[in-house]
């Protein structure tokens, strides 16, 4: 299971940007982009300019905006970010499919998405289907939460994390990666190289 950072509870835009940069450096799977509803692709484009390789998950509402408009924004974001767009779309299933179809290269309602995205197809996930967890910063408690999601077969989990990101990366991203992480490695790493936050 891979762990991404949920930025949606971070109020300050500069804080969000700093966390995205750090998550990118530490190799977290993705960031869930925040910002006022309706401005997510703007924020994602901003984050794209200061990060190198972390996927940018943007929440979109296909009932509120035209699926073609949303697909166009995501496609431009995919180019701006170098293949890092990931769309998390809320709305009626046929409208979500409309967004997904366009981003997969299909002609929908007589229209093709132009430009097509940089990725072969941008992943479009249903907002109802994504897994999120609010972690406490207590590593014993959080380990149980992470284990629970992983053992239920979850592949990608967004977490809200209150502590320093290097702690998340060292203790929980590692633990989530497979069923057999020897946690003593993270504990010894803390002794060799204490986390500074």
């Amino acid at each position, binding site marked *: 299971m891979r762990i991404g950072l949920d930025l949606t509870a971070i109020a300050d*835009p500069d804080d969000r940007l700093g966390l995205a940069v750090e998550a990118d450096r530490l190799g977290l799977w993705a960031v869930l982009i925040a*910002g*006022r*509803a*309706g*401005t997510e*692709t*703007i*924020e*994602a*484009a*901003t984050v*794209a*300019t*200061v990060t190198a390789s972390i996927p940018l998950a943007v929440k979109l509402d296909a009932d*509120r*905006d*035209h699926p*073609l*408009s949303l697909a*166009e*924004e995501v*496609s*431009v*974001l995919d*180019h*701006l970010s*170098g*293949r890092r767009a990931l769309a998390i779309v809320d709305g009626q299933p046929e409208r979500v499919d409309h967004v997904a179809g366009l981003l997969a290269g299909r002609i929908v*309602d*007589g*229209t*093709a998405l*132009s*430009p*097509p995205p*940089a990725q072969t197809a941008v992943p479009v996930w249903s907002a109802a289907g994504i897994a999120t967890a609010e972690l406490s910063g207590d590593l014993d408690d959080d380990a149980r939460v992470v284990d629970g999601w992983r053992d239920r077969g979850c592949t990608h989990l967004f977490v809200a994390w209150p502590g320093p990101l290097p702690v998340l990366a060292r203790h929980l991203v590692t633990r989530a990666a497979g069923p057999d992480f020897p946690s003593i490695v993270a504990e010894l790493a803390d002794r060799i190289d204490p986390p500074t936050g």
Partner: protein
Amino acid sequence: MKIGIGLWCVQSTATAPRAFTGAYRELLDDARLAEQVGIHSLWLSEHHGYYDGYCPALLPAAAAALASTERLHVGTGVLLLPLQRPERVRLAADELGRRFEGRFHLGVGMGYRPSEFRAKGLDMADRVDLMNAGLDVVGADPRPGPVWVGVTSPAAARRAGRRGLGLFISGAFSPEVVDTLVTAHRRAWTDAGRPGGAQPPVGLLRNLWLADTEAERRRALDWVRSSYLVYAGLGWGASDTGVDFASEIEASMDEVEDSATVGSADQVAEHLGSYDVDLIVCRIGYDQPPRSALTEVIERIGRELVPMMA
């Protein structure tokens, strides 16, 4: 007079195919270069559903250009407002205005390709109503930052003036037509009781290049001529615009060439100085020039033209 550059459309055309991801990277490189050489602003342009990928989503592109710079202003020249939900545009403009401290300029226009309206479930016949409803939202006080309206008729210029919104004039017009539009805009603003207090600005797009020798001049004019193919293609791509783009292509290219301002920095500055406007957007975003020619003209505009027009 402020000097900007435009129009970044981020296309991959039949005449000059390229990778889109690289084109967006170049947009950000160009923005940084423009800032470095002292250019006021960089302007983006929008179309939808055309084969060449003409940028359909200006707000994320503007956000990335703003985030890549510290002083450069970035504008949409223009965002097709009837094709968007205006509340979403307003949210984005507010966000960009706040985050980038007034460096974002929202330029809006109506659009003219029926297929772009149909693709979003709209009827182009409703475009004036949609535009006015949209202006009510994006132009409402307190404004997110500078708001400009792209116009082609005195009636539209008056609509912008009455609301105290800036005027963004296309590159195709003669100095006389420009004058008519500017006059209509300012009079409407005055007659409406000077909304906003300060006279709303006027921006003018000009097909332009800096060239010192006759050979350079000819080469630049050929680039400007060939840009007509992009415009004509947009027309062919929407056969029901009512405009016959194909039959008189040479004559139309002659017209585009005549409208262009190509010459030394002195000559260009003298011509631009004859317009009573606040901002000139030098249209240098053609698909033909090699990259080295584009970056050279950006540098020359910043280092030579900008100081002359200050």
